[in-house]
């Protein structure tokens, strides 16, 4: 089957060249197009799953079929569920050595710089290609301390008890239509367990790559950070540029136990033909901290609101969100913090940029449940509009059922200031460069939270987005 990469002009011009390439399709198995109980059962059988998971998937499919499509957020009406490949298995098995990864795929990940980064900055890497993880490895020293970092499928195989105890407890399959879909056809993703008191100082990374045309990627991630432990998980993703749309619908569940801390960083850079509809949620227990750093640069439509439920006193939730929408893109990003216990605190900082007719927004929720006294929450949303054709939305929801709380929300929308441009240009900087510098400054509060090499990457991606664009 041949595929025709399309070229778009203007914004994200560099994307096609750097990330938008595709390998010739090669896979050991590809499910029939569309979604039926037979296909769901087939996925489960091929994975050799226990019966409870097979039943769970089939039940989730029923829920998916019953749930209506969301009528808010972005336009999901054009997703054609019948014309998607739900499972594409690229290789016969997952490996711990890049040498065993098929040459094409290895070349792809080389181009994306994954093996190099693994050597330099990371404690472990998982690389997913279409539906399955093709490479997965963690440093021996961490393995010895009992840290588990596996693909989600291997997590189920090798640690079924632990897996079963937490799987689906944070995000039940009935949570929303796309969580139900993921629960039915999930494949790949990461399973992480960090034992009590163990601090994984260097990040673990997962990289998600879609190669096949008209496919859906449904990875599933489950992270358990035990008492006093720490982990930083980073995920990145890209896909080829195709003329038809792909669907990415992940579910990420995180449990941070007492005194633990988890940071989850996403640099989402899908091609402009990917629907990115993701459910991410974390439970933070006593004195635990959960931080989401969520950068959304790619995709046709992203609807993603990472959330933190603060379950016990002292828990802290933080969401840092950057959304950049260019031509043909709609970033409906944001976050949710739910205060379920007293003396919990949270912070959301959102920065969105719209350009070339793109639409970027913040949609968020701050909820304080009854009994959750002495909570503090602060939300700060800033939006930058780079031209007349673009759009910015802010939809913050605040639902407060307690009186002894302090909740604040602030948002501003503005354009690049003429004075700022003038100042930089009077220093001999071109208009384009000046605008790019201002945008970099605008997102600086979030970029500075990224590990160095990702901060550099982020700035480079932003510059790519900004090229030849300011009028």
């Amino acid at each position: 089957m041949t595929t025709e990469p399309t070229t778009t002009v203007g914004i994200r011009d560099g994307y096609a060249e750097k990330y938008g390439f595709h390998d010739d399709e090669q896979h050991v198995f590809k499910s029939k197009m569309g979604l039926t109980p037979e296909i769901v059962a087939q996925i489960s059988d091929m994975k050799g799953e226990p019966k409870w998971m097979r039943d769970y998937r089939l039940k989730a499919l029923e829920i998916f079929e019953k749930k209506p499509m969301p009528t808010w957020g972005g336009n999901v009406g054009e997703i054609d569920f019948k014309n998607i490949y739900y499972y594409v298995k690229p290789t016969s098995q997952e490996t711990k050595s890049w040498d065993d990864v098929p040459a094409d795929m290895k070349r792809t990940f080389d181009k994306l710089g994954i093996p190099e980064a693994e050597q330099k900055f990371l404690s472990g890497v998982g690389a997913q290609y279409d539906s399955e993880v093709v490479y997965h490895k963690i440093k021996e020293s961490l393995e010895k301390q009992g840290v588990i970092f596996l693909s989600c499928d291997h997590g189920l195989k090798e640690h079924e008890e632990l897996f079963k105890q937490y799987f689906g407890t944070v995000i039940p399959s009935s949570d929303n239509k796309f969580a139900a879909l993921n629960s039915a056809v999930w494949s790949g993703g990461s399973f992480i367990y960090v034992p009590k008191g163990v601090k994984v100082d260097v990040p673990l990374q997962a990289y998600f790559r879609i190669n096949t045309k008209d496919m859906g990627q449904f990875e599933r991630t489950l992270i358990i950070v035990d008492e006093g432990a720490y982990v930083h998980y980073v995920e990145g993703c890209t896909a080829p540029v195709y003329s038809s749309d792909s669907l990415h619908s992940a579910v990420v569940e995180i449990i941070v136990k007492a005194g633990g801390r988890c940071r989850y960083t996403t640099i989402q850079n899908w091609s402009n033909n990917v629907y990115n509809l993701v459910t991410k949620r974390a439970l933070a227990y006593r004195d635990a901290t959960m931080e989401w750093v969520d950068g959304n640069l790619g995709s046709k439509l992203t609807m993603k609101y990472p959330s933190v439920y603060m379950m016990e006193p002292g828990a802290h939730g933080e969401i840092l969100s950057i959304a950049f929408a260019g031509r043909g893109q709609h970033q409906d990003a944001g976050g949710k913090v739910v205060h379920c216990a007293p003396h919990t605190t949270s912070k959301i900082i959102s920065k969105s940029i719209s350009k070339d007719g793109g639409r970027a927004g913040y949609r968020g929720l701050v909820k304080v449940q009854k009994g959750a006294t002495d909570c503090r929450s602060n939300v700060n949303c800033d939006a930058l509009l780079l031209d007349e054709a673009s759009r910015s939305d802010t939809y913050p929801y605040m639902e407060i059922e307690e009186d002894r709380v302090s909740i604040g929300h602030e948002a501003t929308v503005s354009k690049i200031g003429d004075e700022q441009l003038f100042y930089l240009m009077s220093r001999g900087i071109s208009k384009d460069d000046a605008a790019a510098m201002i945008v970099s400054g605008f997102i600086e509060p979030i970029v500075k939270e990224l590990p160095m090499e990702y901060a550099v990457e982020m700035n480079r991606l932003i510059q790519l987005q900004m090229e030849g664009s300011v009028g």
Partner: protein
Amino acid sequence: MTTADLQIQERNLFTDWSARATARAADAGEPAWALERRSAAAATAAAMSYPDRGDDLWRRIDFRTAEAGIAGLDPFAPGPRARGVDDLPAPVVARMAGEAGNAGLLVQRDSDVVLEQTHPALEKQGVVLCSMERALRDHGARLADTLGALLHADEDRYAAISETVRSGGAFVWVPDGVEAALPLRLFQWMDGPGRLSAPRSVIVLGRGARATVIEEQLSATAEGLALHLGGTEVFLGDDAKLVYGTLQDWGRNVFHYGNQRARIGRGAELQWIQTLLGGRVVKSHSYFDLAGSGAQAFVHGFMFGDGRQHFHLHTLQRHLADHTTSDLLIKGCLKDHARSVYQGLIQVSEGAQRTDAYQANRNLLLSDTARADSIPGLEILANDVRCTHGATIGNVDEEQMYYLMSRGLQRSEAQRLIVEGFFVPVLDRIPLESVREQLRDAIEHKIG
């Protein structure tokens, strides 16, 4: 009862109401186009359902009691004609605080406007203040392109019902260049439960005209459902300026769903003050269209809930033209089991460059069983704009309490002062001293 049975029953009710409303209105000399709208609205009401609980504007408020009880309400309860202020219900007279002679006055009692008193000073200026019934008779041409221009009967089923049984409301007309010599005061009173009041008002200010209009809604708390479905449309010509206060203090049995719309012309200014104190379940939609270049809207409002009151205030600041300004501050204070929802949106249309929009929502929770939801939104389609919003929810500031108590005040006194202070920025906007005083008293009474 099956759905089909319910539909038949509802259609019969709306058909009956339409027939009775049309007969009454025809007797009162209503023009044909207005009568036709009633019957069309009745058909619309029958074809629609009550707003879906999943609708983002209805999911946070529960009107099911009103839905279930509407068939038992009387939209045509007559009010006795008053010869003067002395014939009016005592609470209304008290609100006038002896100043009835210094204003244009219009009083509605249940379904009827019972007193219209245009002051000679206003008459001399050509200012019109009269009931909607009289206006349809005498000023039909002026209403043909204003009544229903901003508020449509098909917006939801309640709007359609309101149009069908429309009764009462005021018509205000201030000619070009005229600054109304006296404030215009509108009162609505409900005599008891079982009423469905559906007044519709239209306020038109000509080019460069100026006026102050204060509307007050009052009733005594009684056993049994009452429902208010009011609508007001405001039109400001170029460079006009209107100060409009709408103060709601119904008895605790009243379900209230009010729709207010304003269109602000080039260079015109609207000062809007809205307070919600009474009622059982209260929903209000106030939309401001900044339609002409340089138009300005300043919106100040508060909700103060106690007991099991539930308020939902939805505002929309629509910037349709360039160089427009809107500045909104909504305050909410809640005690006991009260609940408030503020849902506001700033929309900036394409081409509405140099817009300056601000939206602030501040909430004060006085009990741990109260609940406040705040949903301030922005939808911006122009780039050269300054749009900011902020929302806060919190309890009484302990530092302020400490300060006051260190001055020898009791805890309860200190809290009272802080709550009173909380409302001052809105109260200060109310142009008439006596009205301000009345509201201050009502607030104090509510603090308890």
